[in-house]
């Protein structure tokens, strides 16, 4: 029986490149494998994706061109369990950064980046179409005197499903008497897609340009629709003016409720469960606020899934996965919807455009349960519109 020897020559130059690209993030890992054990891919695939091996290769300075580095949704579940607090996301996006240099990236991703470059959004649509989401309503241009800048993001502007969320948010802001405006056609893309896909150099250019633009426009408090945009502005963008205060809309709604500018007086009888977006709960510790908003609506009965709050199960859309194919039968959102159906809730409430898309894509898995997916802003808007007599709440989500 011959002994198999997988010998690899380790090179200094290669090690330096990998170390640079990953910012040395792989160093603290001592290869316990807890990351691999918790990674949600293990729930949908026959074989778990070995996160441990990817980190090991990075430690040794071996660039990884495997398909596996592109599977990561950057949900950070692994990081939440890692005993050495390894920044696993940074290792993986660092490996992706190298992959770009070597042009070893999945098909479709270069096209996506060109779309962002030429069109300024991930959907490849003209900037002039950004304001179309306001059809039938009036939303003004942002002025520095406004309470807040409402930052739409690409999905809320261009995706018909998410436009409904934006419109719901507008009615909430108006009901609260908030003065707000948007950047209209000039709204720049936040850069999350570029960050997720690992193109650090391009991301730097985006952040530099946009940060200066926000400063010149006099942006102070900005409220985002998407947790991904929020995460970018809160954690990656510099505070150039000293006054830059990005918020996710769930945080802002709670502020409005607490200061009694926004009140829910009518009953909205609805049994709901709340799906925490990774980028809000695990990444940014925002999991109380959405619940408090929900619970300030009379009639709402909130039941929790087991994997909730900071232990939420990823919908599968982060890490650039929205722009890659996920085979049917391998979708985290299928599991999530089943979990939601088991709570007996009528509605899964969430607060992220990617989560909405992924969860709605998995509705067929719970067909017959009557379960719907709604954004928190949509539920809150329904609460404002509810009459005193128990009325049938209209669904704005897809059946």
């Amino acid at each position: 029986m011959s002994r198999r020897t997988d010998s690899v020559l380790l090179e200094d130059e290669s090690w330096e490149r990998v170390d640079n690209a990953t910012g040395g993030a792989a160093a603290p890992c001592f290869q316990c494998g807890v990351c691999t054990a918790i990674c949600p891919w293990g729930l949908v695939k026959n074989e778990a994706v070995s996160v441990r091996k990817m980190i090991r290769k990075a430690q040794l300075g071996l660039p990884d061109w495997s398909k596996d580095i592109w599977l990561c949704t950057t949900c950070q579940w692994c990081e939440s369990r890692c005993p050495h607090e390894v920044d696993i996301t940074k290792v993986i996006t660092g490996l992706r950064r190298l992959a770009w240099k070597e042009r070893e990236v999945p098909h479709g991703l270069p096209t996506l980046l060109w779309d962002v470059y030429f069109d300024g959004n991930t959907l490849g649509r003209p900037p002039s179409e950004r304001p179309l989401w306001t059809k039938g309503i009036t939303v003004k241009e942002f002025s520095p005197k406004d309470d807040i800048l409402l930052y739409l993001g690409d999905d809320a502007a261009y995706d018909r499903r998410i436009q409904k969320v934006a419109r719901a948010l507008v009615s909430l802001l108006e009901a609260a008497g908030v003065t707000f405006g948007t950047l209209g056609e000039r709204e720049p893309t936040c850069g999350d897609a570029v960050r997720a896909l690992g193109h650090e150099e391009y991301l730097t250019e985006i952040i530099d340009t946009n940060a200066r633009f926000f400063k010149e426009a006099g942006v102070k408090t900005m409220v985002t629709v998407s947790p991904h945009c929020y995460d970018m502005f809160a954690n990656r963008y510099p505070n150039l003016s000293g006054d830059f205060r990005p918020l996710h809309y769930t945080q802002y709604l709670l502020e409005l409720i607490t200061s009694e500018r926004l009140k829910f007086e009518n009953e909205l009888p609805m049994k709901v469960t709340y799906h925490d977006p990774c980028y809000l709960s695990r990444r940014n510790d925002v999991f109380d606020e959405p619940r408090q908003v929900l619970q300030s609506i009379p009639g709402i009965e909130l039941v929790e899934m087991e994997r909730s709050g900071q232990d939420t199960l990823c919908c599968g859309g982060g890490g650039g996965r929205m722009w890659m194919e996920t085979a049917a039968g391998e979708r985290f959102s299928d599991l999530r919807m089943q979990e939601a159906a088991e709570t007996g809730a009528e509605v899964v409430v969430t607060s992220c455009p990617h989560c909405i898309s992924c969860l709605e894509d998995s509705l067929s898995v719970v067909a017959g349960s009557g379960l719907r997916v709604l954004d928190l802003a949509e539920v809150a808007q329904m609460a404002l519109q509810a009459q005193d007599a128990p009325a049938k709440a209209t669904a704005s989500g897809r059946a």
Partner: protein
Amino acid sequence: MRPLNIIVCLKVVPKPEEVKVNQETMTIERANVRSEINPPDMNAVELALELKEKHGGTVSLLSMGPPLFDSYLRLILAMGADRAYLLSDRAFAGADTLATSYTLAEGIRKMGEYDLIICGEESSDGATAQVPPGIAEWLEASQITYAEDLEVLPDGQSVKARRELAGGYEVVQVPLPAVVSLKVGANEPRFMDFDRKTWAEAEGPVTTWSAQDIGLDEGYIGLQGSPTIVSGVAMAPSAERRREFLSGTPEEEAQQLLERIRSSIRLD
């Protein structure tokens, strides 16, 4: 296998979905329309860069247009091209495809030695697809149009490509030098290398030539050099469609639909 001198001819065009017609003046409003690199030309660039990676050599760009093309050419240098030439002169304006292909062919002659000229199959604005064969004829070079791929043969003297036909495809081989027009979508254009982009923007070799710089005969360029003229414009008539929306359950809608299309189909 010897290194190749490859030239890519490309164009910057207005984004088609943004072009509007001013109904009063009957002209095309380009003022606020954004531009893009003609998509098949991006595929042409990608092919050229792949060939350079495989065989060695250089990739040079050639374009005919106004000074604003300069920044776009630098983006392509950032993708990996080596140098760019921009033919820019008021005298080129109004050129139809005969004058355009003549001008580009002369630009190519001025650029020096070449083995392969790669173009996108057609541009999204004019969409005539005539410039590549035109260039080939002026240069007396071989041509392969509607290529889906390209292979340089080991002796470095000919190229082979699969090309689209009306009802199928064929594989042809032609001697170099050759002009190849590439089908849109034949490959995926790589994204820029940002280190290279910094170089391209600061000191990338982009040379602008006027008609005089390449010694062109004024009678062959621009409006003067164009046998075809636009004798008129009109608004395209919009087809008057019924736009009748059906409603009801799927079964009801299906039945309504059947009633309406009965006369268009044969039912035994």
